[in-house]
């Protein structure tokens, strides 16, 4: 059981005005149980909705925990990631508690060993403070020595949801929306280059880890607590992730061999092994075979992520060089 802090209703010592703030941000329902103020975060299962976390002198009301889906699979709860409200300002926050795990995951036939590291995320948060294309936050060490990240919740939608929500066919998308999406990706990819130049990785680049902020339309990276170690090509997995984002945006979705077999057999017949991803063999990278109006110059960028490539992008800068060149035409 997490150590309960000194403060608990009935035992006195609750700061003046705390009940009112809880009611203001959590509703009267939040007052139907004794208020519980916690300072230690080691046992995140014990921290439940309407608990109050006291971190670095600020009070946060817990509203629940986050979920994460894995493309088409049911969302799984992330009990170590709590939704919260800063009781002073009313700002929505995310509190990430310590959860060390290491696991292997397969990218196609290749196994990558990942580590979830609060320390890495805290370091990256410091590095990107004030950077417009990253989620913002800071780390607090609780009395038990646990690294808790307090993150600003970004009101926005994942990039893939934005694109999926467009009621357009691909050709109309290509002419009317794709140029803007590609232009918006340039600073977002540059942001990853910024991490790499500082010796850090994102670690989990996915199209749903780019949030499009409602108010500004700015794209922001989230969720950078994963790390992997690959001394031969430290940023290769990140670059692979950027390629997947680019392919998704250019294609207005993912296009697989199986989809084409069923829906566009005339295209399927023209596909060759070199048109697919070397890592995710079912994914088509040569999008010009599906969308013949896609410019060769753009398609050539995508083909750098295909089996047919003689040379892969070694760095974000190389990818950006070609992308900027294409956009400047």
């Amino acid at each position, binding site marked *: 059981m997490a150590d309960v802090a000194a403060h608990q209703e009935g035992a006195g010592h609750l700061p003046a005005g705390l009940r009112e703030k809880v009611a203001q941000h959590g509703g009267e329902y939040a007052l139907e149980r004794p208020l519980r103020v916690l300072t230690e975060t080691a046992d995140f299962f014990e921290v439940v909705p309407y608990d109050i976390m006291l971190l670095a002198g600020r009070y946060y009301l817990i509203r629940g925990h986050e979920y994460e889906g894995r493309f088409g699979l049911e969302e799984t709860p992330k009990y170590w990631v709590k939704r919260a409200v800063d009781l002073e300002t009313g700002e929505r926050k995310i509190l990430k508690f310590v959860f060390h795990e290491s696991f292997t995951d397969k*990218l*196609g036939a*290749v196994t990558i060993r990942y580590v979830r590291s609060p320390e890495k995320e805290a370091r990256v948060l410091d590095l990107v403070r004030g950077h417009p294309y990253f989620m913002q936050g800071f780390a607090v060490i609780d009395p038990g020595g646990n690294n808790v990240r307090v993150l600003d919740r970004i009101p926005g939608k994942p990039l893939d949801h934005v694109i999926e929500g467009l009621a357009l066919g691909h050709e109309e998308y290509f002419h009317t929306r794709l140029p803007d999406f590609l232009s918006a990706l340039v600073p977002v990819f540059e942001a990853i280059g910024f991490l790499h130049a500082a010796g850090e990785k994102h670690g989990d680049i996915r199209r749903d880890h780019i949030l499009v902020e409602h108010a500004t339309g700015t794209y922001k990276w989230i969720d950078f607590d994963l790390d992997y170690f690959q*001394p*031969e090509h430290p940023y290769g997995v990140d670059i692979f992730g950027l390629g997947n984002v680019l392919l998704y945006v250019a294609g207005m979705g993912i296009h697989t061999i199986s989809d084409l077999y069923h829906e566009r057999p005339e295209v399927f017949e023209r596909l060759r092994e070199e048109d697919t991803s070397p890592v995710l063999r079912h994914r088509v990278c040569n999008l010009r075979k599906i969308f013949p109006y896609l410019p060769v110059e753009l398609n050539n960028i995508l083909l750098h992520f295909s089996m047919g490539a003689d040379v892969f992008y070694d760095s974000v800068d190389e990818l950006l060089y070609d992308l900027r060149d294409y956009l400047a035409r």
Partner: protein
Amino acid sequence: MVETILLAMDESENALRAARYVGRIVGGSRKSFEVTLAYVLVRPSPDLFEEPEGAKKYEQEARAKMEAVFAQAAAVLQEAGLSAENIRTRFIVTDEPGIAQGLLAEQKAGRYGTLVVGRRGVTKAEEFLFGSVSNKIIHHAKDCAVWVVE
């Protein structure tokens, strides 16, 4: 004048193959060659280990393994005719972003005339994700000869 060769080593069979090749080429030569067997360890972030001394243990284990590999490669070179005093070893712990960059930095610092690296067979997926040290060296090496041994 001594010709200096930096021979990249790791535990793989193709690194030993590269050592055998170097031995064949320079072993019986009348020219004077000095071969440095080099292993590059990219310093891992402590985040990657659950125990506090994980990174140190990782380095110690690598050193122990490479001691044996260096001894084996040195024996191969001596068998080919290179004298022991012309064989050196370097265990390099680097903060460079990758093994290739570590080797290139060592080549530059030591002004080696030749950089030798073995190329292992990798799948396209592995090459994409993990890169190819030999490809990076071919692209970025300056002021030296590069031998890639398959």
